[in-house]
């Protein structure tokens, strides 16, 4: 489309680009500021000299954080929950999405099952009964408490279900003609063809497990078992240093509370920042995929 730009149009375009630029920068400024603080000396940080660039550059806070046993332990717990959670979530998402993607004529129970799953999105028992259930099933204080209660992520399941439905019916019919059953059709045809949707769901699941913190806080009796985000909740948000030993208090005076927290905030966000380019590419597709309906 060839456009003749009038004066007012030119002003609008200039204004539009400026507004959007400012808005986009404003979104990231707080994060950049905290990153700058984490690389600054503690005296500069506590005096408030740091703006958007480190002042008296140092890696002391990072050395301190990475040397802490609790920090490493919590990262290991997070890696465990992400890997166990990913396997459980993906297998169950695929296994539930496939039958529910069938037409009612082909799978009579479909509607009933679908409602059983979807109803959990509309109604939940609340915090205390969930805690009791986890306690009675004996998984309190184990990685399973962070995985099993959300073993079938309904949103992801629906996303995949809609993708399955969008696949050509002929493929499935051909597979059945060749004597393949449902299991073979699912693993040999549906799963390979759904790579983009599965990639989206995999990334969503990993980000979700990495970011979860509240379950760790209440289902883990011992802080030793806290995953990273739960651990960060206690040190960055609750800022409770009453239990710190005298030695670590002396250590902390050298590395201010503030630079120390900033370094941990940045490390907690780092994996997300690393997968972000992929996430962005996939989730645009994912949202479009999820809306494919018949």
């Amino acid at each position, binding site marked *: 489309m060839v456009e003749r730009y009038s004066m007012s149009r030119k002003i609008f375009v200039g204004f539009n680009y400026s507004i959007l630029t400012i808005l986009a920068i404003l979104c990231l400024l707080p994060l950049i500021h905290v990153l700058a603080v984490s690389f600054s000396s503690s005296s500069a940080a506590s005096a408030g000299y740091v703006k958007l660039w480190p002042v008296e550059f140092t890696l002391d806070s990072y050395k301190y954080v990475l040397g802490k046993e609790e920090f490493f332990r919590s990262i290991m717990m997070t890696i465990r929950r992400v890997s166990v959670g990913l396997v459980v979530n993906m297998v169950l998402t695929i296994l539930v999405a496939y*039958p529910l993607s069938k037409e009612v004529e082909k799978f009579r129970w479909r509607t009933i099952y679908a409602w059983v799953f979807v109803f959990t999105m509309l109604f939940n028992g609340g915090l205390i009964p969930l805690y009791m259930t986890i306690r009675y099933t004996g998984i309190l204080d184990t990685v399973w408490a962070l995985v099993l209660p959300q073993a079938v992520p309904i949103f992801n399941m629906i996303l995949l279900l809609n993708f399955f439905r969008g696949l050509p019916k002929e493929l499935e019919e051909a597979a059945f003609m060749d004597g393949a059953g449902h299991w073979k059709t699912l693993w040999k045809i549906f799963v390979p063809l759904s790579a983009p949707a599965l990639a989206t769901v995999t990334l969503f699941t990993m980000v979700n497990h990495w970011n979860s913190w509240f379950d760790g806080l209440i289902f883990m009796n011992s802080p030793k078992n806290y995953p990273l985000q739960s651990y960060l909740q206690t040190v960055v948000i609750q800022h409770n240093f009453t239990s710190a030993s005298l030695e670590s208090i002396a250590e902390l005076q050298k590395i201010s509370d503030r630079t120390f927290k900033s370094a941990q905030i940045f490390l907690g966000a780092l994996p997300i920042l690393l997968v972000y380019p992929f996430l962005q590419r996939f989730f645009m597709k994912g949202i479009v995929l999820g809306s494919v309906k018949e």
Partner: protein
Amino acid sequence: MQLPLHLMILPGLLLILVYSYGPMFGTIIAFQDFNPARGIIDSEWNGFDNFRYVMALPDTMQVIWNTLVIAVGKIIVGLIVPIVVALLLNEVRKEYFKRTVQTMIYLPHFLSWIILGGVLIDILSPTYGIVNQFLKWIGLESIYFLGSNSWFRPMLVMSDVWKEFGFNTIVYLAALTSINPTLYEAAVIDGANRWKQTLHITLPGMAPIIILTTTLALGRVLDAGFDQVFNLYSPQVYETGDIIDTFVYRLGIVDAQYGVATAVGLFKSVVALILLSTSYFLAYRFANYRIF
């Protein structure tokens, strides 16, 4: 022939039955003087005593009110900002600029409230926070944003918009690209300028999706955002910032009043069920929206 299909569903179904339907059944402790040592079977039934006890607490009404005010504030501002940004982005012709802006504004959506809460506590700090340094620099008084009852709710709404507006912008941008381009061509021939086109074609074209997202958002009006509030609030701002979910947490986990906390949770779940079903029904009826 259908047996494999049942078998595939079975593991997921069992887990859902235990960990989603189990707690639903467990809500019966809302009608008990629940004692964990005695368990559900042997705890004493006390009818509606827990509900009566909660209604008599001085904080309860305030907590419900806070929840509604915060949630509605987020719905309104969280609706306007992404629509405006989508409209502005839609006017951008340079693809790389559009993509760069999108990449920058989506990012906070993927970070947890622990990370964003940590960042907010730092930048809003009354002593070293950069926001207050700026206020002092331009000659204003510094403000304790997260500790002041007049500032806490606006801060919740603003930080929620910061996290989510970029993500929601996509939905509206997608709706914008689906508007029939011939409508614009016809409008140009009729002499409509850009502003008129936006007013008479773009906005009406977006109306269905706007109505849909609002309806679905209203179904969650009791969710004021536990993750966010829990990581930003403190006893100083309970008066304006304490919401149903944080209230349940303190009653149940901190004070160990299991029956009472479950009663509040059950109240919330039942109201949420009614609101959600209504909003999904309306969305289905008027926008032909289906969950699956």
